[in-house]
């Protein structure tokens, strides 16, 4: 093995030596190297195994189009699979390993697949794994899963951090080759705010790999000087290592900036930043990608794209072989030959498929015009090629150029289809470009250096004219120009395998088979053969595949179809999309006003939507949650308890038409609600099903406060705004959400009034005569602090809710607890709240589940027929009024010791557990400390007339089947005497 393939020149920094390991072998490189160039410099030809056949593979390209050289980088939790070695910048200590082999890279056991290739053709999976059906889950799927997936994930949480950012600019220039640099320069000099983004760490694009001259300097020197000028401008943001991965509507672009991937450690800073860029104009200068030619065994390590071979020599100072041959159908292969020859690399032969006069003479090289390669040899590294004229040449590197495909990807993201251009034998952008986007340089089919420089200036000028900026005086610099001519040539006919898509192991045979079996449409071809799938998305293979399909179907390429692209241009780390919104930061946590106090009391908390609510308050000695909850219920019912209910939605409704408005959004009447009174209201959707419920208090003639359920607070507000703005635009009514503005506590139990009388200021009479059940009003507490008092009950006890401005919420809970000491006050959490509402038979989220009507809930009479309200008309549909409708009932176990379970379905005694026998289902259950046994709520067909009957609660999931008696849903104080006091 050749140990050092370094040659003179290049853009690497030889003063900075770096050490790295590949599969445990220590190797050296320099700053400016990619992992790929460093591996080649160290003579490492074999870098991976192919996806399907596990063929030995080497580095194929020098850029983001790489289909072969996929490696795993870093250790432990930082391990990242499927990274392109051609894009990974070398750093000191880089740890890289190869992937997709069982056993070592050198001896991959799965290479047996290569011998089985006659079976593993296109459609293999679809045809083979169909039968026997029972084999799928137990046999086929585990095998497929074990052999799929290329690299391996670490299996640990991603230890890196990511961030998101937002940028605005006048002109986004995508790509920093000759066209991009001139476009940015033109727009920047005119004063536009410019962003110049390039996926490479070194800006300049092809200028860094060419030996041409621009403005009488070496191309790379001119690029460096131009980038320096742009950086100095101040109005140009230059973003290397930044991929524009997607184009979205109205000038929005997705950019991924790799901040620390080129460093040994991120140092705690975001590894990558995902930018959303709002650009008035964008100029796509993404260049072109070289494509291969299909011929027998064209996938061996050492067979590379000609432009890549040139790039490794010129930019990275690496000779990719000692004896090279060139196989080309266009002039760029000859430029590679000239450059390499000038570097002292021996060129054995230039084989051109065209029957033309050789465009150049290459020292020492045989020039074979009209030549074809019949086959190649060398298992783990190329050793020779054989031409169709019988000549065998010993070469260790073959540089192939099948022409260039403009990088039109981003022009397609919003649906534009590229069009075929015969002159360059490639697709160029179609006419319906994304709004605000133009294309310059090779991406637009301007294939020569001077054409690219000029089109960059032209598009830069067009952009600043569009933006209304003063005209630019920038001119394209002089450059020496190369000749660009190509004659399409796609494949050398062979009975052997000739690869089209290296990453997915798709060969010309597979495409011809797809054609024979009727999968000729491009989209079918892709899915049947997997052509163009996976991480490279067919950057080097799509056009070749299409051309081979065209030849097989005897059609032209435009007749066969086009290849279109979706975002992302190259893979984007999911972590970058998430940014900092991970784990607990995924969404905010809302804490009710009593949170700090509840924490001091050792409360157990539960997440309800965004809210963190106290679930119960354990006392010392209580080991099971039920002990705490049962105690909270008993003590509340015996004396007094308090609960933070601030999470309920609160909407302030004001205006001369406020009552009229409420009458339209609630199914029951609100117009006649007296000032100082509260009413329970039920809200329907327009389809007549129940949506939400709550109480609304009339504080004054034109001022109401509505409460909603915790879960629907935002949605109810949105619906009310819809009703106000869209349905009844001229009602004088205004809405504001005051959920966060008020801290509100339920004070429940026989001693609740006595407790409140201790803190409500004396000038407010809250005696039962002055402040009866369902009264409300503004009061003051603790010597003049503003408060609102509502006499409403969810527990069935005499109860109040008291609200104070949120800033007093923490103080109020402490005051209430201190004042309640003489009554043995208890705080209670959401569990006890739930138990008491089930005992009382109030519907909550489990019953108001979007599938139930007021009739189901036993509130059918509340839906007024004498007024128009949302849902009133459609709730009268015959199908929703049937006598067999489900009705809310209570359920108690016939054997008191039986435990009920929510979700159980009801069956008649003796009926089989079949759908047609289904009578309904259990919605809520609780152990009732008041009754001394489990109780439940549920929906039962003909429920009301079946009260007293025994049915079964059958729970197939938990495996229980118990007898229950149908009762009234109101287990506790059914006539409401207690709450009315």
């Amino acid at each position: 093995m050749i140990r050092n393939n370094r040659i003179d020149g290049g853009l690497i920094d030889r003063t900075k030596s770096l050490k790295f390991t590949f599969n445990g072998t220590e190797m050296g490189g320099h700053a400016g190297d990619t992992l790929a160039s460093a591996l080649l410099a160290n003579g490492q030809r074999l870098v991976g195994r192919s996806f399907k056949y596990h063929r030995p593979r080497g580095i194929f390209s020098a850029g983001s189009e790489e289909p072969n050289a996929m490696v795993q980088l870093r250790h432990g939790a930082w391990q990242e699979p499927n990274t392109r070695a051609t894009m990974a910048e070398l750093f000191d200590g880089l740890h890289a390993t190869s992937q997709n082999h069982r056993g070592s890279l050198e001896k991959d056991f799965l290479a047996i697949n290569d011998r089985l290739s006659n079976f593993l053709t296109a459609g293999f999976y679809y045809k083979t794994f169909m039968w026997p059906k029972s084999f799928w889950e137990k046999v086929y799927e585990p095998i497929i899963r074990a052999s799929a997936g290329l690299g391996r994930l670490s299996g640990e949480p991603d230890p890196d951090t990511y961030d998101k950012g937002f940028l605005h600019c006048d002109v986004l220039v995508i790509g920093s080759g000759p066209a991009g640099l001139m476009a940015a320069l033109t727009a920047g000099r005119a004063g536009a705010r410019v962003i110049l983004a390039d996926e490479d760490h070194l800006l300049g694009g092809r200028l860094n790999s060419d030996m041409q001259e621009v403005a009488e300097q070496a191309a790379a020197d001119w690029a460096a000087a131009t980038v320096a000028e742009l950086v100095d401008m101040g109005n140009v943001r230059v973003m290397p290592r930044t991929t524009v991965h997607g184009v979205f509507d109205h000038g929005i672009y997705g950019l991924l900036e790799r901040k620390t991937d080129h460093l040994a450690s991120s140092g705690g800073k975001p590894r990558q930043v995902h930018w959303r860029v709002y650009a008035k104009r964008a100029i796509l200068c993404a260049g072109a990608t070289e494509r291969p030619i299909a011929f027998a065994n064209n996938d061996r390590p050492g067979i590379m794209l000609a432009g890549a071979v040139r790039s490794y020599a010129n930019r990275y100072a690496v000779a990719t072989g000692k004896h090279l041959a060139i196989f080309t159908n266009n002039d760029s292969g000859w430029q590679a030959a000239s450059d390499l020859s000038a570097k002292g690399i021996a060129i054995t032969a230039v084989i051109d498929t065209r029957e033309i006069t050789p465009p150049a003479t290459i020292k020492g090289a045989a020039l074979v015009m009209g030549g074809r390669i019949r086959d190649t040899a060398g298992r783990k590294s190329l050793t020779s090629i054989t031409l169709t004229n019988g000549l065998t040449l010993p070469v260790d590197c073959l540089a192939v150029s099948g022409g260039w495909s403009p990088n039109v990807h981003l022009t397609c993201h919003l649906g534009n289809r590229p069009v075929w251009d015969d002159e360059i034998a490639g697709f160029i952008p179609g006419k319906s470009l994304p709004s605000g986007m133009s294309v310059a340089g090779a991406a637009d089919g301007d294939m020569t250096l001077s054409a690219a420089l000029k089109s960059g200036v032209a598009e830069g000028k067009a952009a600043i004219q569009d933006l209304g900026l003063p005209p630019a005086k920038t001119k394209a610099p002089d450059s020496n120009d190369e000749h660009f001519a190509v004659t399409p040539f796609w494949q050398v006919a062979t009975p052997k395998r000739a690869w089209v898509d290296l990453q997915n192991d798709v060969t010309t045979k597979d495409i011809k088979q797809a054609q024979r079996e009727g999968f000729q449409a491009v989209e079918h071809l892709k899915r049947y053969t997997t052509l163009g799938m996976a991480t490279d998305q067919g950057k080097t293979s799509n056009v070749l595949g299409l051309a081979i399909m065209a030849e097989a179907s005897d059609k032209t390429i435009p007749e066969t179809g086009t290849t279109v692209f979706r975002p992302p241009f190259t893979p984007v780390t999911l972590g970058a999309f998430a940014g900092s919104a991970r784990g607990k930061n995924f969404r905010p946590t809302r804490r009710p006003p009593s949170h700090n106090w509840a924490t001091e009391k050792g409360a157990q908390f539960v997440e309800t939507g965004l809210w963190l609510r106290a679930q119960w308050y354990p006392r010392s000695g209580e080991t099971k949650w039920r002990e705490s909850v049962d105690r909270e219920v008993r003590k509340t019912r015996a004396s007094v308890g308090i609960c933070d209910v601030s999470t309920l939605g609160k909407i302030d409704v004001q205006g001369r038409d406020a009552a009229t408005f409420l009458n339209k959004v609630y199914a029951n009447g609100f117009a006649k609600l007296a000032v100082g009174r509260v009413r329970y209201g039920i809200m329907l959707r327009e389809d007549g099903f129940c949506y939400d419920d709550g109480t609304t208090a009339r504080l004054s003639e034109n001022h109401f406060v509505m409460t909603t359920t915790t879960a629907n607070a935002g949605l109810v507000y949105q619906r009310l705004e819809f009703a106000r703005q869209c349905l009844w635009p001229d009602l004088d009514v205004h809405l504001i959400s005051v959920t966060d503005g008020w801290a509100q506590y339920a004070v429940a139990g026989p001693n609740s009034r006595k407790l409140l009388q201790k803190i409500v200021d004396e000038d407010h009479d809250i005696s039962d005569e002055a402040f009866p059940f369902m009264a409300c009003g503004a009061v003051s507490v603790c010597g003049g602090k503003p408060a609102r008092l509502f006499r409403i009950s969810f527990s069935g006890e005499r109860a109040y809710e008291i609200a104070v401005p949120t800033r007093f919420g923490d103080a109020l809970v402490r005051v209430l607890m201190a004042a309640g000491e003489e009554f043995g006050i208890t705080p209670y959490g959401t569990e006890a709240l739930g138990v008491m509402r089930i005992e009382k038979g109030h519907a909550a989220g489990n019953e108001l589940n979007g599938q139930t009507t007021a009739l189901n809930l036993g509130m059918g009479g509340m839906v007024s027929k004498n007024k128009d309200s949302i849902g009133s008309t459609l709730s009268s549909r015959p199908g929703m009024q049937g006598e067999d409708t489900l009705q809310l009932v209570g359920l108690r176990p016939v054997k008191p010791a039986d435990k009920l379970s929510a979700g159980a379905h009801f069956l008649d005694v003796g009926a089989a557990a079949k759908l047609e026998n289904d009578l309904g289902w259990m919605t809520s259950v609780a152990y009732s400390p008041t009754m001394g046994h489990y109780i439940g709520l549920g929906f039962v067909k003909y429920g009301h007339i079946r009260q007293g009957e025994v049915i079964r609660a059958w729970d197939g999931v938990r495996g229980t089947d118990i007898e229950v008696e149908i009762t009234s849903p109101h287990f506790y104080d059914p006539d409401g005497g207690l709450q009315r006091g």
Partner: protein
Amino acid sequence: MIINHPLLGPRDAEEFVHLGDAALVDRPDWQAGDALEQFHDYLYLRDNPAGEYRELWYHEQGDRSWLVVTRNTLTHEISKVELARDFARKQGRSA
């Protein structure tokens, strides 16, 4: 997408909630003889045009305006944005 809010200027569509067809503004008269049928059609039948489409967007992360946005479903080009309240008045909902 960017929605050019009539009061607040261009805003990212991420700030909005999408509801759908602006025909939801045209809520039928509950006292019409065929009210049940009209409400059925109002609620369940929607056009799905390839081309210009008027739809309701709610500026939830903003000023809580409901907007009527005229958007081309083929290109996502937005040709008009108006306050839903103004739109509703034009549709004769002032009564």
